[in-house]
Every structure is written in C-alpha cells, then in structure tokens.
C-alpha cells in the first residue's frame, strides 16, 4: 500500500499544500460515511505511489473542512479535483477507474 504517500489536506494547509504547490496536486474530497468514497480509496492510494514526486496526492475530509468544500462548491462525493498553479484543471465526480485518473493526470504533466 502506498497510503503513506497520501497527504491529508485541511482548511488550514490548503493554501500552502495545494494552491501554492510546485507540482500538480490531486485532491480527493471524501467523508467517513460515504460508501463510494471508501471504494475509491485504494485507487487514490495507488496513484499516490505511481505519481510520487510528480503529483502530490491527498484527501480532504469534507466533514472537517467546510471552508475548502464550500469554496469549491463541492456538493457531492467522491469528487476528485486536480489543481495546477492554484487552479482546478480537471475534476472527476463519482468512482472512476485508475485508467481514467491517469488519462486526466497525464494531460497536465
């Protein structure tokens, strides 16, 4: 498991860890009570391993971080957004397979 590479994003660290990051950042909006989010977890873990050093990959708990959640108007999870230079450049809503995430990521590397 590559889960040690998965960063925890919060309202507090979002600016520095996501918006001002030097590399593209993949943010998985999730919550404990969301079954499909749990199904997506292993895919996010695997991406963190595959893209180590090129993309930083992490999760943001929507329950605990209403600031970012409201700012990006996330009203459904799982939603995964790719940030580059502080902007959202891709988003995938719902559970998708690894190939689909790779396609979205590879466009921006």
């Amino acid at each position, binding site marked *: 498991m590559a889960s040690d590479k998965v960063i925890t994003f919060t309202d507090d660290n979002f600016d520095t860890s996501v918006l001002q990051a030097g590399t593209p950042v993949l943010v998985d909006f999730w*919550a404990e*009570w*969301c*079954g*499909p*989010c*749990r*199904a997506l977890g*292993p*895919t996010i873990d695997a991406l963190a391993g595959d893209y180590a050093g090129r993309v930083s990959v992490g999760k943001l708990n*929507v*329950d605990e971080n209403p600031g970012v*959640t409201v700012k990006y*108007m*996330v*009203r*459904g*999870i799982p*939603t995964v957004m790719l940030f580059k230079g502080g902007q959202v450049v891709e*988003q995938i*809503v*719902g*559970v*998708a*397979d*690894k*190939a689909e995430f790779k396609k979205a990521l590879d466009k921006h590397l």
Partner: protein
Amino acid sequence: MAAQRREVTIIGSGPAGLTAALYSARANLKPLVIEGLEAGGQLMLTTAVENFPGFRDGIMGPDLMAAMREQAERFGAEIVRGHVHAVDFSSRPFVLTVGDDRIETQTLIIATGASAKLLGLPSERALMGHGVSTCATCDGFFFRGKPIAVVGGGDSALEEAIFLTRFASQVTLVHRRDAFRASKIMQDKALANPKIVVEWNSEVLEMLDPAASAVNGIVLRNLKTGVQKTLAVDGVFVAIGHTPNTSVFKGQLAADAGGYLITHDGSRTSVEGVFACGDVQDHVYRQAITAAGSGCMAALDAERYLESIQPPPITEAASAAS
C-alpha cells in the same frame, strides 16, 4: 499481464455476485470475482437495511456487504479490483478483458446489477457533484438547511425525500404524473412530512446554473398546463429508477427491451455456460435478498454445468480397483 484460467468467474460484488462466490468457493471451484468500480454494489449507497433476514435490528448496508465479502473470502473466493471492458463468448473458454488483463473462464456468472438512471440533460451532467446527485446518503449532508428537489415518484424517490428532510429545509418532489407509483405506506409517510411538498405533473427542463458551477434552481414545466417556472433549490436528487449494467454484453446475450438479461431454467442465459443473477436480470423484485438468492442459483447452475462438460476425474480408489 498473463492470461488467467478459471472454472468460474463472477462479474460484480453486490449481494448476487458475493453469494455466487460463497457457493462456488464452498464447492471448491476457486471462483474469481471481478468487483467493478462499485465494490459492494448498491447497498454501499444506503444506510440501514431493515429487511435482510437474520438481522433483527437491521444492519448498515456497507457492513452487510463487508460481511458477505469476508464470508466468501473465508472459503477461498478471490476478489480482485477491476472493471470488465469486453467479453467474447464466441469461443471456449470465454474471454474477458479487464483493463490490460485477459481472463479465460469455463463458466461466467454475471452479477453486474443496475445503476441509477439520469434524466439526460447536458446541465445535469455538468452539475454532477455540484448539486446534482443520485445518492441521498452520500450527498444529503451538503444541503443542511437548504431547499432541494427530488425527481421521481417510486418507492426509492419517496424514501430519499424522507431521508433528505433530515438535512434540507424543504424537499420538493417533482413527479411527472398526478399520483405516485410508490407503496401506500411510503406515500402516507412522505405526504405527512411537513418538509415535503409535491410538484405534480411536472418535468424538469433544465438545471441551473452550469455557468456558476453550482445548482441554484431547476426549470419545471407543468405537463397539463404547459406553464414553466423556476424553482430555487441548492440540490437535485434524481431518483427515476435504474438501468441494468449490460452494455458490455450487448449483442452477445439475449436481453429485453430495457436491457435486462433474459434468463431461463434458473439462471441460464442465451449462451450455455453463462449465467446471470441479481438486478441485472430482475426488474421486478430488486431486493438484496432476491439478488443473493439468485446468486446461489447461478453458482449451483454453473457447478452442474461444469460437471456436465467434464465428468469428475476418476478417483484414486476407483482407478486402483479397475
């Protein structure tokens, strides 16, 4: 990756697929289960399941599915991630394509279930995750104190509407007809709820506003009067039924007009050696227990089919005696 060879392969990890896996595993057939993107199936989207026998106080959907999975694994079922992209039934063994992998299997049990139907509006697609949802238990949380709409008139639409009153300030049910299809008990419950109002004879023309990247209203048209109006809501839950996940089998298996696989003599499909169970072949009952029951049937049918094409090897004792 190298091709794998199996006697039994099961597509789908809902109640039907996992029950088929349990029975095949206990028959020593070492089944391979390809779980699909929605691991655990539809019950992962719900909270308490009150009607699965054996749980007096109900059980949470995800907990029930975790237990079914562990039970199948305990007897040797192998459950792998992956989504089946293509199947080829023209030769034997059958060939499945899962991403870059190829799986050859003597028998196939299809338990791909069903997925929520959408209205098909471009604005609906654009606003997915930003106010448009098909999963009340997943997304209800985002609408605390906000007005929302639920589209549909069946049991599941009314159940979602009732569930969503826990969060929303008001829930408007939008229904095309002048009466609900839902059961009487569900209708009574919904109509008695002070937070639920109904827009009868109405269809959704548009969801607003893709330009704002968030739902702030829906445009409705009354089918009787033709009058259009905009309803201010922060979210829309689409609950207009389900469609079977059968696109990968199109043209290779007999299906009805709705896309549901047609089964005969238990779980047999139009191709010998291919079996189907659960919601993918049932638009009538659509329950966890019926899906599980038909998964058991498919596993037993597959086992008997395997015996019929390859008589069991002569045992040591028998060959020594001959």
